[in-house]
């Protein structure tokens, strides 16, 4: 029988669980979010421990801000055993403190670096690849379906860049949306907020066509290099990118 520890699903609750497990010295085989469906041979253990809000500050203070960031990025990833990875990482981080990232010969350090970089890269790519369309009342609306859960990171970026606009970004894969009202953004699940949007619009079509014209003109025929384009702009994103959607 495998023991699986479950947590609420949010980051703070995961940290709570990890620190509690380390403190009480329990044997850990797996950690999973609440909504996960266990197999026959798994024994689910759920603790009701009071949430300690100071954990985040504690991590920043003892491991440094860049380590704290990297850990959060790992949490945002879709890696199957990310919870267990963070558990091992915290175990070693408590030992090496701020020097933990130099311990590249430890597998969990390499993995945390690899995965956090992957999440950060994807969020950077989507900062470029996200496409808004304008709906009625100047509302900007974008859809995406990224591999990792980067909606929060993107919302931070666009709340600075498109400060004086109303916008909505929807993560189609996770069914969550981020709504911004010129002051701050909130992230809601689709169940909490039903979107009903009218998308067809002549003015919008004209601007999309203008953009497609620009896109198709700017490439130099004599230097055509599809492979290079694909390396930089992987096909998995094309569905939501206005100018290449039609090429799919």
């Amino acid at each position: 029988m495998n023991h699986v520890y479950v947590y609420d699903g949010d980051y703070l609750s995961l940290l709570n669980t990890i620190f509690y497990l380390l403190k009480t010295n329990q044997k850990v085989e797996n950690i999973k979010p609440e909504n996960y469906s266990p197999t026959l041979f798994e024994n689910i253990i759920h603790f009701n421990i009071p949430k300690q809000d100071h954990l985040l500050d504690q991590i920043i203070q003892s491991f440094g801000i860049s380590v704290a960031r990297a850990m959060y990025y790992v949490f945002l990833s879709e890696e199957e055993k990310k919870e267990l990875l963070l558990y091992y990482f915290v175990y070693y981080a408590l030992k090496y403190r701020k020097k933990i990232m130099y311990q590249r010969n430890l597998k969990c350090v390499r993995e945390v670096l690899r995965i956090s970089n992957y999440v950060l890269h994807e969020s950077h790519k989507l900062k470029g690849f996200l496409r808004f369309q304008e709906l009625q009342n100047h509302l900007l609306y974008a859809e995406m379906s990224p591999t990792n859960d980067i909606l929060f990171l993107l919302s931070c970026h666009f709340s600075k860049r498109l400060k004086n606009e109303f916008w909505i970004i929807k993560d189609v894969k996770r069914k969550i949306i981020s709504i911004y009202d010129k002051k701050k953004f909130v992230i809601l699940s689709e169940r909490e907020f039903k979107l009903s949007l009218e998308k067809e619009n002549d003015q919008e079509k004209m601007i999309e066509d203008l953009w497609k014209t620009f896109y198709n003109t700017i490439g130099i025929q004599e230097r055509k290099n599809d492979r290079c384009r694909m390396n930089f702009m992987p096909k998995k994103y094309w569905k939501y990118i206005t100018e290449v959607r039609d090429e799919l």
Partner: protein
Amino acid sequence: MDLQEKLKILADSAKYDASCSSSGSNRKSKHGVGNTALSGICHSFASDGRCISLLKILFTNCCIFDCKYCLNRRSNSIKRAIFTPEEVCSITLNFYRRNYIEGLFLSSGILKSPDYTMELIIKTVSLLRHKYHFHGYIHAKAIPGSSQKLVKELGLLVDRLSANIELPTENELKRLAPNKTSQNVSSIMNYVNQNQSKKYVPAGQSTQMIIGATKESDLDIMNKSASLYRSFHLKRVFYSAYVPINKDSYLPSIICPPLTRENRLYQADWLLRFYHFQVKDLLDFKHPNFNTMIDPKADWALRHFDEFPKEISTCSYYDLLKIPGIGVKSAKRILTARKHFTIHFEDLKRMGVVLKRAKYFILCNGKYFINHKWFQKEWIEKNLVLEEKIEKEENNMEQLRLF
């Protein structure tokens, strides 16, 4: 003429400019729209694999100059168009709000006179900044021959300003671009260099050279670049493989743009800026051109074979940088890692150091990656050439079709 057609013509005329970077500026949005990202953001990639981050257009492709290599030269009979400042603003803002672009790249053919053209560019950019409160990235071209007052004015509005040097030597410039002088270009560069600050051209200046339209060697080109970096502190020199658009007795008759050569120049450019190499290390009068088969750093290493193999656990940062296949990031990683544990070949791989080329030139704790008797120049050279060939084939480079 409708906007669609205008955009088509004026983007088509602007596409041969290589620069599209949007990095180096950290403009914050106060009121209005937009900011800039220090790292730059690529928004799309064109069919040729080049990044699109800026709306790259000419204000007009009408031009009183007759530069032989240019699509927009006076003597070409092509469709001409001209934007109004309001049109440029409207397209830029509409694209920016939808996150199509990071900002505007505005260049222009010379209309009436350099000063007149500069004034049009300034009018457009100032409209964007002051009327529409646009705080995104703007890269503008300074028109050679325009007055210093206008260069000053434009620099206060944009993030990056650039003037294209086009060709590495004065003689060739005179031959192919009779209306331009390198004096005009360098006086702009000099002015920008002396006044650059957080307020004035915050992202610095860049320039571009055309590769393969003239007979100059790689040595001439690299010497020119090095002197530009030295005297004007340019952020970038771009190299643009000559695309045969015009038929002219002054121009070489080639079918494909020299992409491999362009690639080699960029590699060497990086060696100058980040790897502490000098032009004289890479090229000399006996070897004025880069080896097309091997990248410049590996080529240098083979010519200085007695300095290798280098011991990873003891050699200095500068020596690490001289090892083919090891870049700035890898060198720094090795430096920090070796303080904490002894590095073996497997550790290098795990640290993300690419060993494909590096393995031939290094020792880890006195050990070579295979039996030390294989550490021979000819054998390594053969392998490097082979690997580069495979890489090229994978990338399906255009040149190979010619071979």
